[in-house]
């Protein structure tokens, strides 16, 4: 009995993903390198922690989006996506600010804020899983619901908020580094462990990777998809708390973040060997965008360029990953 050949495909497929990943990392490095030369102080500890702090909100939202994309699969049209996540932040932030304003303690305000996010996630889950609406459409409508409620309760104004918790969050932690920077890394670390190193995470990937295979393995597919939306909803409200801390109040126009969230979650795919969304990949792409924006500011490039660049990055991520996937199959 000779051993069966142990080839791994024809080699090219593997190289496609590996090249893309290497290329993306090099691209990331080149951008950092350019700004390091062009903008003195770009690589200073102060500036780096500043970028981390500024990226915290986008990061947490991006993680939520990533989880939904993991469980929903890679199809850009029918796969998992949570378009409501940015407006979830807006509504949750408004809830937090209002509860503080009417004199509720932090615990109560925080609890209700997280409940708001959870409720929005639940609504998405019901629309997608129980009713069976395409995620793109389901979360789009929930996005509108969030935006509407936010307008109703804030009358489209900025609500100032302050509390002991907010003071801690907005301040500096150990070594004079911003608390939000620590929080971004802590949330990322926790989610990396949960998503990439537990049976729960593995099953989440199975559900998105090949639904029938997950079903055949006895995984309750619907439950996992629903959970992904609920986790995403909670990420939205965590982002809201960070946002209230950073801006000392609620803010209007949170929906503008959506493009960045989608961009970073999609871009994160190119940082993984298997071309799947990962928390670590999304963290990298969030930092990439953060450094990019920061570099623009330091080199006096208009921030109006940011949107366009993000659009290009989405195009790049979607085009290259689908190209590599096509070569593979």
């Amino acid at each position, binding site marked *: *009995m*000779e*051993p*069966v*050949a*142990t*080839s*791994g*495909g024809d080699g090219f*497929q*593997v190289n496609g993903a590996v090249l893309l990943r290497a290329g993306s990392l090099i691209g990331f490095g080149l951008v950092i390198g350019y700004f390091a030369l062009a903008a003195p102080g770009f690589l200073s500890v102060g500036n780096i922690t500043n970028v981390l702090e500024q990226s915290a909100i986008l990061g947490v939202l991006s993680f939520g989006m990533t989880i939904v994309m993991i469980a929903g699969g890679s199809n850009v049209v029918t796969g998992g996506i949570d378009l409501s996540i940015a407006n979830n932040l807006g509504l949750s932030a408004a809830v937090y600010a209002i509860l503080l304003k009417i004199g509720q303690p932090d615990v109560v305000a925080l609890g209700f804020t997280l409940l708001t996010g959870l409720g929005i996630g639940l609504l998405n889950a019901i629309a997608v899983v129980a009713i069976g609406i395409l995620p793109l459409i389901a979360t789009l409508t929930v996005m509108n619901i969030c935006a509407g409620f936010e307008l109703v309760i804030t009358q489209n104004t900025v609500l100032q908020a302050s509390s002991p918790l907010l003071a801690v969050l907005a301040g500096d932690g150990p070594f004079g580094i911003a608390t939000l920077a620590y929080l971004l890394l802590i949330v990322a670390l926790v989610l990396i*462990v949960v998503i990439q*190193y*537990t*049976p*729960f*995470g*593995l*099953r989440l*990937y*199975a559900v998105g*990777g*090949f639904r*029938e*295979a*997950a*079903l*055949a*393995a*006895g*995984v*309750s597919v619907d439950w996992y998809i629903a959970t992904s939306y609920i986790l995403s909803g909670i990420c939205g409200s965590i982002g809201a708390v960070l946002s209230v801390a950073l801006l000392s109040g609620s803010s209007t126009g949170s929906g503008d973040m959506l493009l960045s969230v989608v961009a970073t979650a999609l871009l994160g795919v190119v940082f993984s060997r*298997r*071309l*799947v969304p990962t928390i670590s990949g999304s963290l990298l792409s969030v930092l990439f965008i953060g450094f990019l924006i920061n570099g623009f500011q330091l080199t006096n490039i208009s921030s109006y360029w940011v949107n366009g660049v993000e659009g290009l990055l989405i195009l790049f991520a979607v085009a290259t990953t689908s190209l590599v996937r096509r070569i*593979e*199959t």
Partner: protein
Amino acid sequence: MINHFSATQAKGDPVLTMHGIVKTFGGVRALDGANLEVDTGSIHGLVGQNGAGKSTLIKILAGFHRPDAGSISIRGMHCQHLTPRRVEHLGVHFIHQDRLLVPTFTVAEAMFLGAEPGIGPIPLLNRREMARQATAILRYHFDVRLPGGALISELTPAERQIVQISRALLRDPAILVFDEPTAALVRQEVDRLFEIIRRLRAKGLTTVYISHYLSEIESLCDQVTVLRNGVDVGRINPKSSSTSEIVSLMLNRDIEEMFPKKAVSVGEPVLKLNKLSARGAFIEISLTLHRGEILGLTGLLGSGAKELVKSLFGLVRLQGGTIEIGSDRTEIPSPPSAVAKKLALVPEDRRAHGVALQMSVRENMTLASLGRFARFGFLQLSREKATTNELIRKLSIRTASQTSPVRDLSGGNQQKVVLAKWLSRQSAIYLLDEPTVGVDVGAKVEIYRLIGELAEQGAGILLLSSDLLELLGIADRILVMYRGQLAGEFDPGNSTSADLLSCATGTSTLRTGTETMAPAQRTMLGKDRLG
């Protein structure tokens, strides 16, 4: 979780009983009171044509579908509501035809999905343990060494199959259900699979084995249940009865009718190739295809035969040589230009570029040739309907109506719809790439008849097939390719599959097998893959 129940089950008692199972999909009765009784510790074959209800029966057993009526008992337990999880708890495991493995998973992840080992009480994946056990079980049962980090998408079909079987073995199954397990395997791997199944039987494991290859059923199974039109029409011992008995039960018809003979006189040439070459695929191929002729073409994977057919449809870039259609020298740079020159290709992978599942049978059939049904830019429904009716009748497609969505049809019938789609355009030259692969015996006969009719109407047919009996049965001439060149031309009247095979493999001392088609096909693939 090792065989808690098997102690109470004596060998020979039924370990699995499905009784009077009825299931209807969108008006089509897939199962109409089917019974299946499997003895403990036996290897039980389940055969039937595509659409006979095998897949539906198995999907009900797997907990994917809920039966409309009937009862199921597994290891003495009466099961009312089967879910995939419950079935797995009862010790029933499936090796699915579709190889249900997540492509982005590593071998170890795919094997342990659903039953991942943790690190003590901490709910973390024990990747090291997973990799160790995965490697060990692959070595122990299959003598296969796969790198632990290899992704499923990087594996060959055979390797994926092996991973799936290992996945089931990891869970100490009591009943293993194999659904067409050998479709992607080469001869040696099939032998090893059989050896494993027999070894598992010796340990008291029960196997349900579903296959199109009757020779496999004959050599492996203790009992066989034959399904036809959603009912079990026989439960026989293959050791004491012949394959043809099973076939006639499946078809309700004799095997002699398998290859419908046609008497068509071959006309003038429609396609002439002169020293056609494509880089890395084939060199200086010259051949002539005539009106009314079925020209068989065969060769191992990598012989260039498939590329030759594709190049005629503009899918492979040519390097040199000339193509003449009718008497005009021409070039075929792209599929649209091929269609314009009245060439039609029936691709092998029909499921992938095949049907639109949510569209109706009629829409699917006429989609590829809407131009024929249009007048002044509007579709003529009456003509569409008439053509569809004719195709449904010709191919014996089991569907509730023309407007039923294709997804309601069984797999075999879906395949027939795809075939009908390509055949509904009227072309002068048909390039058929494995038109009967994965199709059951009954549908094969219908497809052969259809090919015969096309030839009768004056079309030239280039039939690429690795089913040698099929070529011998219906082709007028057979060309064999070997390493990119034409290696021989055969007259089906006085050639055997052994002749074709030795030509295709470049040997002359090859033993060939039996009268059934599977082993011949197998040996070819096997030689190609491993030789």
